[in-house]
């Protein structure tokens, strides 16, 4: 009981005093996950759009694979990226293992299927009448596509937010490929895992609180976006 109370008190102190170690870890977390999200968004939205708008041989297989990849276990992704980047791996020469870049690669792989799958579903749920209406008003095929994507904007934004929630919270892949090096690759989730293991609860709790707040913020944003989308589709 005492350890818990004491831990919380110390945790709040760390947060209130803007402890530099704490801030450094939070900033790195946001950087890694933010960049991974940016990459996943840049690659995933066009791919999701393509899957939603075009039919091609193997389309069904592609969609169901992407849906399956949404649930990729982070440790498996970590292992895969580790093998790729390890010294004897195909990309070993780049020397990326145990760097923030390796973590960004792993989280991009985790975020990508979420962005693709949710974007696709946002796009296919746009009423086909929209494309017809665009054509009656003189849209070129490209303008029709842009119009559909615009109509799906809330769903696409939801996809991006959901992917951010996923990568911020995961620990498995970045622990494996980042190595949890203090001041270099140590982020919120990996620090919590390590410090809890060592019995240093205050830093772990402080980060836990921040992580919960972030996750709360992500969910609030998701809720808002979905409500706005639902309102507009009413």
């Amino acid at each position, binding site marked *: 009981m005492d350890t818990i109370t004491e831990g919380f008190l110390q945790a709040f102190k760390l947060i209130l005093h803007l402890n530099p170690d704490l801030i450094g870890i939070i900033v790195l977390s946001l950087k890694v996950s933010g960049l991974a999200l940016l990459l996943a968004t840049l690659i995933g939205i066009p791919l999701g759009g393509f899957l939603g708008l075009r039919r091609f041989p193997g389309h069904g297989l592609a969609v169901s694979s992407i849906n399956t990849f949404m649930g990729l276990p982070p440790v498996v992704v970590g292992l895969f990226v580790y093998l790729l980047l390890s010294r004897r791996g195909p990309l070993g020469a780049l020397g990326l293992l145990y760097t923030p870049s390796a973590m960004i690669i792993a989280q991009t792989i985790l975020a990508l299927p979420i962005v693709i799958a949710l974007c696709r579903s946002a796009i296919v749920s746009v009423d086909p*009448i929209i494309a017809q209406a*665009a054509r009656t*008003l003189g849209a070129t095929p490209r303008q029709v596509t842009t119009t559909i994507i615009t*109509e799906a904007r809330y769903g696409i934004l939801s996809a991006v937010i959901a992917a951010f929630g996923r990568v911020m919270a995961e620990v498995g892949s970045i622990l494996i490929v980042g190595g949890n090096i203090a001041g270099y690759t140590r982020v919120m989730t990996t620090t919590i895992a390590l410090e809890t293991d060592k019995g240093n609860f205050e830093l772990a709790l402080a980060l836990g609180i921040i992580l919960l707040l972030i996750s709360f913020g992500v969910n609030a944003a998701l809720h808002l976006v979905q409500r706005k989308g639902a309102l507009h589709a009413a």
Partner: protein
Amino acid sequence: MRLTLSHINKHYGGKEILRDCSYAFSDAGTYVLMGGNGCGKSTLLRIMALLEEPDSGTVAFLAGGKVLAPDPTIGERHLHEQHDKGSSLDAGRLLTPDLALRRRITLVLPRIGLFSTSVWKNVAYGLSLRGQKGVAADEKIARALAFVGLEKKRDQHALTLSSGESQRLGIARALALEPEILFLDEPTASIDEENTSIIESIIKTMKQEGRSMVIMTTHDRSQAERLADRLLLLTQGALQDVRQA
């Protein structure tokens, strides 16, 4: 602009929908196409509005003494002439003749398909597709909205409009583009009497102002009587001229 249909045939699956439909829409005014549910009115309208191809037969437009047809074997030279004038620039690229032609006519669908944005932006949409922005475009939008009585709702979200207002917005969205032929597919099928009479008077005013030829469908006989300069009937895939006013 005049419109000529020659020997239009259309099947869906094994089912014949339109059989050898020919007609010349040659006078300004309102043409009303009647026929039972599922007889092919919407299909014929989509074909005339160049949104769907017939299995065989041609749709040709006549404007300024030139034949403009989506079929490249008809009036091709004229299409290229029109093309070369560069009158239809789309973001710097020349449009295909088909699209250039399609942009001179507009179809209002029975389910309008409003975009999830403001009333104003719904009307602005077609103009911005054509690269038209700024004061001149704003004036067209304002005029179209005033014409259908939606000027006060310009900032409202389009998907919160009533069905009658939605239908009027659909018409405003088309009118802002100043189409030479306006196709209306069952414009009053799903709305109340008040909005029906508003829409009927919009159609009548359009005729008085001589803006564009209107070709519409309805299954309401008395509405057809009220609006039609010419009444056409589609039965078992065949198009007949019933009455000439």
